[in-house]
């Protein structure tokens, strides 16, 4: 395929950087504010994100190799090799969060070039930018076969356009955990060997050496962050919800870019400490943030949040006193990686890949997903579920109707399903979604 000449200035990256730098500067003054002021999230997240965005330019200046990866690959591996970890989905999602129309232009360009309207915009945004010469170019790529066909094929497209060495990682259908009904003893060695191969691949194409010590160091940081994340998951079971509805997904985004460096720890720790603080004082986020209001209902957002309007969660808090305790991406279950031996480290990383939010639920049989939803509904005392089905995710939509019935049978909790494109408001806009949620609340819940 024809090579694209890339410019030094990348509009996609610049747009994100500009937006989040302004946000960071606005938030930074509140950084040390007490929790009781009801901060929606800590400025530390914005600082981490802006540092991450800036680091790409530094990498370019210094000639540090850039590795593009999809959201199922642990960034610790790249940090251990001193390679810049360019998470493609973070670029596409962050651009959508930046609430500009730039991402829509990229979607249009990708579709004009022949990609289908129903293919996932988490990759199409980037491809549209590539076609405009407005996206950074990696030196090599690493991506996994799952959680969806869209990732699989659109990474093939990006690899062809970039024409760079690409490592593909095969995630199996079965489970590594002996307690799971789909357990298969082959899964761990099959995947751990591939993680070893990723390391060799990074060493070769990143012109670097990944020592065990370095790997231990980067995994050590993500382990600490994961421990805080797991503690936070436990604390979210408290009623009323001690954290804002946006907190879990922000933690997810932080871990996507910073697992492997100390900055990953900051936001997860803030979530843990903030939740603990409110629980000790016997208050919830809603009562502390909105006067004269208490948490009335607890929602589980079964699929990915609305990236073009993340404040939908906030609107639900204000309008119905609903806390969205968790969303699928915010449900962190990655266990710390055992650092006691080289083999254990690779096995732990292999498990981490399968436990990445969305890969955890979507890579295999429906039961992986169903078990999580049922467990969350029961453990977190959820009143209802909302399934905002992203049109790019055919695997999710295909089981929504069946799962709604099974969730109700197993927990008695209703699920509302509607379609949207999480990255493009032109498909279904915020106003329409709010109307649907309002109707659901009035007809079923209130």
């Amino acid at each position: 395929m024809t090579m694209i000449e890339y410019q030094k200035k990348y509009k996609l990256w610049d747009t994100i950087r500009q937006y989040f730098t302004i946000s960071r500067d606005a938030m930074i003054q509140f950084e040390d504010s007490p929790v009781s002021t009801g901060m929606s999230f800590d400025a530390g997240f914005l600082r981490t994100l802006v540092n991450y965005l800036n680091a790409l330019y530094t990498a370019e200046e210094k000639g540090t190799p850039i590795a593009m990866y999809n959201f199922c690959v642990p960034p610790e591996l790249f940090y251990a090799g001193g390679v810049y970890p360019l998470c493609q989905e973070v670029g596409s999602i962050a651009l959508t969060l930046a609430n500009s129309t730039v991402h829509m232009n990229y979607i249009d360009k990708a579709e004009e070039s022949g990609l289908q309207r129903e293919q996932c915009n988490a990759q199409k945004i980037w491809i549209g930018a590539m076609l405009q010469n407005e996206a950074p170019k990696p030196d090599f790529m690493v991506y996994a076969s799952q959680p969806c066909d869209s990732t699989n094929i659109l990474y093939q497209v990006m690899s062809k356009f970039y024409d760079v060495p690409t490592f593909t990682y095969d995630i199996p259908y079965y489970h590594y955990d002996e307690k799971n009904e789909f357990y298969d003893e082959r899964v761990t060695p099959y995947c751990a060997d591939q993680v070893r191969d990723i390391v060799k691949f990074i060493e070769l194409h990143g012109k670097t050496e990944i020592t065990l010590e370095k790997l231990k160091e980067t995994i050590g940081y993500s382990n600490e962050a994961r421990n805080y994340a797991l503690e936070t998951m436990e604390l979210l079971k408290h009623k009323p919800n001690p954290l804002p509805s946006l907190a879990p997904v922000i933690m997810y985004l932080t871990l996507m870019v910073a697992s492997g460096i100390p900055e990953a720890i900051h936001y997860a720790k803030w979530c843990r400490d903030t939740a603990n603080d409110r629980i000790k004082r016997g208050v919830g986020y809603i009562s502390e943030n909105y006067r004269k209001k208490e948490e009335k209902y607890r929602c589980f957002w079964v699929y990915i949040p609305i990236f073009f309007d993340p404040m939908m969660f906030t609107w639900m808090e204000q309008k119905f006193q609903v806390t969205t305790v968790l969303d699928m991406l915010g449900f962190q279950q990655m266990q710390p990686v055992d650092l006691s031996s080289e083999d254990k480290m690779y096995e732990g990383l292999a498990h981490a890949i399968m436990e990445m939010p969305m890969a955890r639920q979507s890579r295999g049989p429906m039961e992986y997903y169903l078990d999580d939803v049922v467990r969350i509904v029961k453990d977190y005392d959820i009143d209802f579920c909302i399934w905002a089905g992203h049109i790019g995710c055919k695997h999710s939509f295909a089981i929504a109707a069946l799962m709604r019935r099974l969730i109700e049978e197993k927990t008695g909790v209703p699920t509302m399903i509607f379609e949207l494109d999480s990255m493009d408001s032109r498909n279904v806009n915020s106003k329409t979604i709010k109307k649907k949620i309002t109707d659901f609340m009035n007809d079923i819940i209130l």
Partner: protein
Amino acid sequence: MSIEDFYEAIQPVPTKYMKNKKVIGSFCSYTPEELIHAAGLLPIRMNGRGHKETALGDSFLSKFNCTFCRTTLDMILKNKYDFLDGIISLNSCDHIRRTWDNIKYEHPPKFSHFLSVPHHASPAAIKWYTDEIIKLKNHLETSYNIEITNERLKESIKLFNKSRTLLKSLYEKRKESELKITGTDAFAIIIAGTAMEKEIFNEMLTRFLETYDERPKVDYDRRVMVVGSLIDDIEYIKLIEDLGAVVVTDAHCFGSKYVWDMVDETKNPIEALSERYLKKIPCSRMIGKNVNHDVRRAFIKSMIKDFYVDGVIFESLKFCDLQGGDNYMMIRELKELGVPTLELDREYIISGMSQMKTRVQAFLEVLA
């Protein structure tokens, strides 16, 4: 042997060819059918030919799932597949994988098995799939109280290879400038092979090939290749040929991708099956070093050259992310080589034929 005999086999299920044995349906060309045959069962490919509704399937799958899955699920839920003794499903694509989740809960067959197919064809992946085939073998043996010996399996492999050889010789004849078979008829023959006993099919095809030269010459003005994912309805081919072209070859999972590669008869049969199925001309789901887009492109390029193809029609089932993405790359690459291409989005259940006809007609005019 008349071509009509093959057409009998591609009627809506169950056909008269599905009456003599217990029938096992499978969703994908990555199913090692030889093993099912060696268990004394009849393997057929799931299809929705002749079925015109998806309403019940739609109540489970979404409108963003492909109509092949919605059609077959609809049929299963309406008991139209109750003649099957079992179903084998795979993680071929998101649509099929999730269709299986729905079947499992809503209409579980008597026998069912799921194959985890790797996306690679590395030695580790081949070992993985070998184990999967062994698990299927054990499951069939216990469920049907039969021993699948190596000898039985080798016999089945031989039979299926014979079928592939015969079909490839049919493809060979379509390389010639003077054609004695239309693409529609050739496709009917190939599909028939997925829906009947291979012993009977091989016999029928052998006799057909023996009389091939006696067939009248086919008039055509352009030679076309059809590329896609899942096409099992001859009407799509007929539409192209009714406009004066002839479909001389293809690259999709009911055509050459099903037929092309042989199972090595000299190797351990299960390992040979694993190797053949993982290393065959790859589906767009495959991303391994030796089974990826480059391999698919090389295959299509060789087909274009060998079959003297004037233009390529890419058919894609709506909402098929995998094929849609692969077509996207392939069309750009073929354009760079100066090969005329047309991309047609379609539904599994035939619809919008007049619009499709207009587009094909315009394409054929460009070729002229």
